[in-house]
């Protein structure tokens, strides 16, 4: 058991932290949000320059062969700044689908383009009726035109509006809710039959409703009919990344609240001199540290070979981080 960072990791952390400190103050963030796509293309190039966009990819694909811990460090920093760019959608979700499901040919085509910032991805799996049912896929794919033809609709696709390529789940066999018969496809976001409606989420990230009618593609990720396992890997990677992002959020919230409790005066003294405020901040600290432990667990488990172990531990992490996040954020607002 070892909690120390490697020199590379410390270097990575420092550079991302510095970038956020220099370029992602809250008013700067507001400005990025007002940009055309709702986020900063300039920062996106910065991420590429720093090698963040290729972080988890093998060097042969223009990546840096980083692991889940490296992604964790980046997402923590991003969480502190609440970044708007499509990093999770492109590098974590899309990237994981390609890393684990793409043929060498596909990876050679796509991953380098992600790494250099020229291509953005989105993970188009969820559907309006599915809620949290990963197997509730009604979008269909049938053989046709020398490849596959997709029909259906995907909902709340994070950064689906700006994505160049979409990772789309569709049914190649079986019924709604069947575990088998789901297949992942790589689809050109500008292909005929793809209609997208972009909008803003509560956290000011962008998302899209995507409808597919007779959309052509010949790129399958993973095995035909066995896509569910890959979907789960993608979501597990996403949960781990968002857990780290949440830790960053909690750190920022706790730090701001602590600072405010020192400077905000009522009844002639800082509110931080009230014992109930002090203990609340201590409880927030405890929750945050428990949450951090869960984010570490999730990161550790992303590459766990035993699927059961992996799913169980990442589920635990998800619950823990969610509870910590609500406790810390709600009390930050209260104080």
């Amino acid at each position, binding site marked *: 058991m070892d909690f120390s960072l490697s020199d590379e990791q410390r270097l990575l952390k420092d550079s991302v932290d510095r970038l956020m400190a220099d370029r992602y103050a809250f008013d700067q963030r507001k400005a990025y949000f007002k940009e055309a796509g709702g986020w900063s293309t300039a920062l996106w190039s910065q991420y590429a320059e720093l090698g963040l966009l290729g972080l988890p990819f093998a060097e042969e694909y223009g990546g840096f062969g980083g692991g889940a811990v490296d992604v964790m460090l980046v997402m923590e920093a991003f969480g502190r700044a609440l970044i708007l760019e499509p990093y999770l959608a492109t590098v974590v979700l899309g990237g994981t689908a390609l890393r684990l499901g793409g043929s060498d040919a596909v990876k050679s085509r796509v991953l380098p383009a992600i790494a250099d910032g020229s291509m953005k991805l989105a993970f188009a799996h969820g559907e309006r009726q599915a809620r949290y049912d990963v197997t509730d896929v009604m979008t269909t794919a049938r053989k046709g035109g020398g490849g596959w033809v997709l029909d259906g609709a995907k909902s709340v696709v994070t950064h689906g509006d700006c994505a160049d390529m979409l990772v789309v789940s569709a049914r190649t066999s079986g019924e709604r809710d069947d575990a088998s018969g789901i297949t992942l496809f790589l689809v050109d976001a500008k292909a005929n039959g793809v209609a997208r409606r972009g909008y803003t989420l509560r956290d000011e990230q962008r998302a899209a409703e995507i409808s597919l009618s007779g959309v052509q593609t010949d790129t399958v990720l993973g095995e035909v009919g066995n896509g569910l396992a890959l979907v789960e890997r993608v979501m597990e990677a996403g949960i781990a990344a968002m857990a780290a992002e949440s830790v960053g959020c909690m750190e920022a919230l706790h730090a701001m609240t602590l600072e405010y409790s020192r400077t905000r005066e009522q009844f*002639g003294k800082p509110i931080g001199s009230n014992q109930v405020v002090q203990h609340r901040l201590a409880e927030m600290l405890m929750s945050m540290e428990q949450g951090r432990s869960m984010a570490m667990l999730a990161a550790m488990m992303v590459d766990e070979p035993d699927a059961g172990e992996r799913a169980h531990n990442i589920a635990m992490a998800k619950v823990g981080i969610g509870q910590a996040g609500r406790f810390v954020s709600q009390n930050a607002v209260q104080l």
Partner: protein
Amino acid sequence: MDLRFTPEEVAFRDEVRAFIRDNLPVDIRERMRLGYSPRKQDTVTWQRILNKKGWATMSWPKEHGGPGWTAVQKMIFLEENQMAPAPEVSSFNITMLGPVLIQFGTDEQKKRYLPRAANLDDWWCQGFSEPGAGSDLASLKTAAKRDGDHYVVNGQKIWTSTAHHADWCFLLVRTNPNAAKRQEGISFLLVDMKTPGITVRPIISIDGSHHLNEVFFDDVRVPVENRVYEENKGWDVAKFLLGNERTGIARLGKSKERVASAKEMARTVREHGKSLIEDQAFRARVAQLEIDMKALEITQYRVVSAYEKQRDGRPDPLSSVLKVKGTELLQATTELAMDVGGPMSMPIWAEELATLSNEPDVGPEWATQATGSYLFLRAASIYGGTNEIQKNILTKAVLRL
């Protein structure tokens, strides 16, 4: 002792329920059911309908146009009105300003302001909080200097709800900066919002809505006749206003309406092949909320009944229990609704977006609204005296520690 409604109370409830059913405009009810807060015009429309019926001025004595209801009747009305759901009458006009003028106002002031307040012909706002004076209201700095038959007001107020709608503002100002105790140099003024020198700047809330404002006063001239009660005695007025009967502070009807609507929505949401309403964990969570609401309902009737008997004008410290438990519940109901929405709670449903595009909406409106309410109502445990302040009140007034 009998926790059941008397036949008279049942009849009253049925009358109120029927009146609201027959008179509340459908579009207002529907928007509110989706979780939107009422628009200005919605509130005006409904309060005038109620005023016509004589029901807008619940907390005013009969001789000043109040309906003369018992404490229980007031609770019944509030709850029915909230559960409809209908807009609540302007608390600034009815709960705050009205009783203050009736207690401290000149006949002139009563004649001039009360009827228009009852009918919401004047929309009032409350100029109390300042950047440096939140929980510690007495530290307010906004200054009013006497100049002939006017006060000249300079300073800033903040968190001023609906100041952008308001025709008038009741304002706490410091008329004697040198008073021995901070509380002794304060006066209570009525200010026409159209007076030159008043600037209202919006504060957009985390849910994107515009309720709150900063209000700046720059050499604003207020006639001395607009002062309520004596100069430098404004703190007595403020204490009376804040301590005044806090009926309905628990907003229980609102929580009930939110839980009912969340259950409705849960019927429409499918998960793992069955509707969410059939899910054990969800049912347990709703049951817990309904248990807590039932307990609070009885506690509320106990507190208001006891208060009515006591009637010594002093605020009832136990109303702090209603504030804390009520807002905790209200916040829990918004969290429930948001969780029912699930992924569909993430998008911002901007009304203008709907009008600008004829594309299908992004998920059910109630789901996107649920997140807005969740975010906005985090303020419920902050406004009206933070829940921490309420526990301080209980400590001093009840525990006597």
